[in-house]
């Protein structure tokens, strides 16, 4: 009996053991399942933030095996190419700093920026079929080349714009109003994007108060100042205010806030056209109030303020930060001050839109992607982007902007034999608010008025001068240069 009992006990203990062994099997399955779930989770949700780190040398691996594509201007001038020194490849930018805010840099240490980043896959010819084509190249013994980019930039115009800016900080954007092609895109200060130069100067570049790494033309946000009056005129014409006249006494008080003309000058009786020509603050402040909150909000929407614009390189979104507007706000918007911030490129788009009878064309910088042996992979066609005014309104404002250059503040942009339209701006900013004489000088314009070939926006930061004085001559030179290149002068 006792023996049988002990045997039974043994069996019972074994059963208990078996039960626990099954528990352990469940535990092991659970552990392995955790691994699988975490691995899947990592792949779906975590990895994207991780693998773009510049410490991930995979991003550079392809760079050694393939000759990175070349970048050309619209006429085939090489703006960036690879030079092979022994086994190493080096990215060469023949024009140094000139394209630092268009093409960007391609550095093993600091990563890639602008076009070098956005078009990396094309430049390195990365696509899902690579293993197959690579294998073919390996078997045939040919070396792999990336694709080349042809930009819409005109190197001569770009160079001229940069020279005209000189050492002044700011930006110049020139585009073709009828196609949306970017012809010149200059931001100052700039920097030399060559790898060796970056390594040498990186700390200086990131610590400098002038922020030379900021592409101002596309990512700088500025108060538009009086150039915005051209846009306000669109809405004013649309609402029939162009038949009205205003009495300009040099200053006006709206809701207890005093608004003065530049130099406190009184212009007497002005209609909309003349008010724009002399850039009367008192008249446009009143027009702002007369248009009212709803119309001004509509205008901002029509101009694309606050709308994300897709472009070939990162573009800041212009801002119109009003939830509700008081009268002083409406007056400020009327003269382009207040909570409006625009990029120089956006200002050029608005200018081009007016020039193109109300239609803003999609802006683009890369015209063609072409394989090393000349096969065109991608060929961009101009396309309409949005409409900022109906054709008649735009035509009316075009005429008024022509008046600005013919007889108003924009005389410095006048070209003999060519009709030029424009608008000057002298924008107050955080420094002028402290009483310093540091206004931004703006100019927007286009030519010829009857068949626009070029629209330009120029801003000189904290220049302390008027847009008509400093910015208009730069725009003029660029228009002359471009029209001459086109054989129109």
């Amino acid at each position, binding site marked *: 009996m006792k023996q049988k009992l002990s045997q039974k006990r043994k069996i019972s203990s074994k059963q208990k053991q078996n039960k626990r062994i099954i528990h352990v*099997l469940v535990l092991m399955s659970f552990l392995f399942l955790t691994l699988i779930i975490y691995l899947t989770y990592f792949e779906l949700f975590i990895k994207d933030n*991780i693998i773009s780190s510049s410490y*991930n040398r995979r991003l550079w691996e392809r760079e050694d095996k393939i000759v990175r594509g070349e970048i050309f201007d619209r006429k085939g001038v090489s703006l960036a190419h690879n030079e092979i020194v022994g086994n190493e490849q080096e990215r060469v930018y023949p024009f140094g700093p000139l394209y630092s805010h268009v093409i960007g840099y391609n550095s093993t240490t600091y990563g890639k920026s602008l076009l070098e980043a956005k078009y990396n896959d094309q430049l390195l010819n990365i696509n899902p079929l690579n293993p197959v084509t690579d294998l073919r190249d390996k078997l045939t013994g040919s070396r792999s080349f990336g694709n080349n980019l042809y930009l819409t930039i005109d190197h001569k115009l770009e160079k001229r714009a940069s020279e005209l800016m000189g050492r002044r900080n700011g930006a110049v954007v020139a585009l073709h109003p009828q196609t949306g092609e970017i012809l010149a895109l200059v931001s100052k200060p700039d920097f030399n994007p060559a790898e060796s130069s970056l390594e040498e100067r990186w700390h200086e570049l990131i610590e400098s108060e002038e922020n030379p790494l900021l592409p101002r033309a596309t990512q700088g946000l500025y108060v538009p100042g009086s150039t915005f009056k051209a846009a306000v005129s669109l809405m004013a014409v649309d609402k029939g205010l162009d038949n009205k006249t205003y009495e300009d006494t040099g200053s006006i008080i709206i809701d207890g806030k005093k608004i003065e003309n530049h130099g406190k000058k009184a212009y007497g009786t002005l209609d909309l056209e003349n008010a724009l020509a002399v850039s009367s603050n008192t008249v446009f402040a009143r027009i702002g109030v007369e248009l009212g909150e709803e119309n001004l909000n509509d205008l901002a929407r029509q101009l694309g303020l606050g709308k994300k614009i897709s472009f070939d390189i990162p573009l800041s979104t212009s801002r119109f930060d009003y939830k509700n507007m008081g009268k002083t706000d409406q007056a400020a918007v009327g003269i382009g001050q207040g909570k409006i911030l625009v990029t120089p490129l956006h200002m050029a788009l608005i200018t081009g839109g007016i020039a193109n009878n109300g239609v803003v064309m999609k802006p683009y910088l890369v015209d063609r992607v072409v394989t090393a042996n000349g096969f065109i992979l991608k060929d961009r066609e101009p396309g309409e982007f949005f409409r900022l005014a109906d054709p008649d309104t735009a035509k009316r404002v075009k005429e008024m902007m022509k008046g600005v250059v013919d007889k108003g503040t924009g005389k410095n942009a006048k070209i003999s034999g060519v009709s030029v339209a424009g608008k000057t701006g002298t924008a107050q900013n955080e420094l002028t608010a402290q009483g310093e004489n540091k206004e931004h000088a703006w100019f927007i314009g286009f030519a010829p008025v009857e068949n626009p070939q070029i629209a330009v926006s120029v801003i000189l930061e904290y220049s302390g001068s008027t847009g008509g004085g400093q910015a208009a001559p730069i725009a003029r030179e660029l228009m002359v240069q471009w029209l001459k290149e086109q054989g129109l002068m």
Partner: protein
Amino acid sequence: MSVLKNYRSPVNIVALINVIAFGLLSLYQESFSSRILIAGSLMVVFVYVANILVIKLKFEDEILFLTVSMLVTLGIIIIYRLDPVLGWKQITWFIIGNLIFFCTALIYRKINIWESLVYIYPLVSLALFLLTMFFGTMVKGATNWIFFGDFSFQPSEIMKLVFIFFIAAYYSNPEKLTIRDLKIFKRTVNVESKWVFMGLAYLQMGLLVIQRELGTLLLLFSIYMVLTYIYDYSRKFILINGGLFVLGAFMSVKLLHYVQVRLVAWLNPWADIAGKGYQIAQSLFAIGSGGFWGTGIGLGQPHYIPEVHTDFIFSAVCEELGVFGGVGVILLFLILVYRGIKIALGIGDSFHRAVALGIALMFGFQSFIIIGGVIKLIPLTGITLPFISYGGSSLTTSFLALGILQGTSSSKFMAEEEIYETEAESEAEDKLQAETE
């Protein structure tokens, strides 16, 4: 061949994967060499020969060896792809490992002294430890390798098996370690067997702390805890051990710098990506770059990960064979553990049953610890991935363990007759037990 008929498809799949992988490698390697094709053919021949032998010798469980063939195949493909020289060495180790496997599986059945050596095992561990201390060479901050000329060997690999045998020997005869009539200060004390066992187990694990073998330590502790859970029904004993683990972990984080470094690298590798977090960051880059389908054999850049051919080989698998490939490896290990536990359940002899369990757990925990480490699920502790990582010590020990597992599955140790009990019987028996107590 008739033996192949029944198991035709699995072995053929392993062989086919060898053919495809080595074929691709020959196309993608920098310079074509016929050595790759020879290596591939050698692998195919050996996989067939070994698997046919397993069936011919009437081993109880063919799936076990088949699973391992697949794991080793994946390992060799990746290692060969990383470095053909290491690939050849690993193929050599694979062949030696196979020999060890068959010898062990056949010899193990014939020797029956393992159970009685319970006092010997801790001494063997200590001897291996002292051997490393006096003759060892410092590699990556830890003295755990012994070099004989060109030949290196990691004693802690053997310590794992010794430890499992120790636990198995104890639980097959739990009273053996009792110390009677111990004289302390003229008083006579009896020390319960359980505490002597615990002391000796911790002593062996303590040696690993000195050797800085965190991964192996964690592995041995997991095996120890799980076997204790299975065999020791005292809740108090398990709680004490759990408490000691927490205390030990806390103390080591406070006191041991190399533990702190690993913890910091796990919590935020990005803070010091160029330093402490470098390895784990590179591992995550590799896994992330592979995606679900992988770049394909030879098309990724796993060589950016330091120690990729040993501890980080799983990341290389994920990069080139994708997360699906990684999941495949995880599932293969799950099959291995499942078959191991299944074998254990069928063994009647309690010592061999414990050994089989210990080995199955060793494969399971070891793969979990290192895979979890390289994907940053748990802190990284250096340990090899069984059967896949490069290295003679690791591969031969794994085959040794597999041989023992196969040996325990011999019909000799299997339960001679299954005794089924009905629920009622079991209840009655419980009552009986209560009465006698």
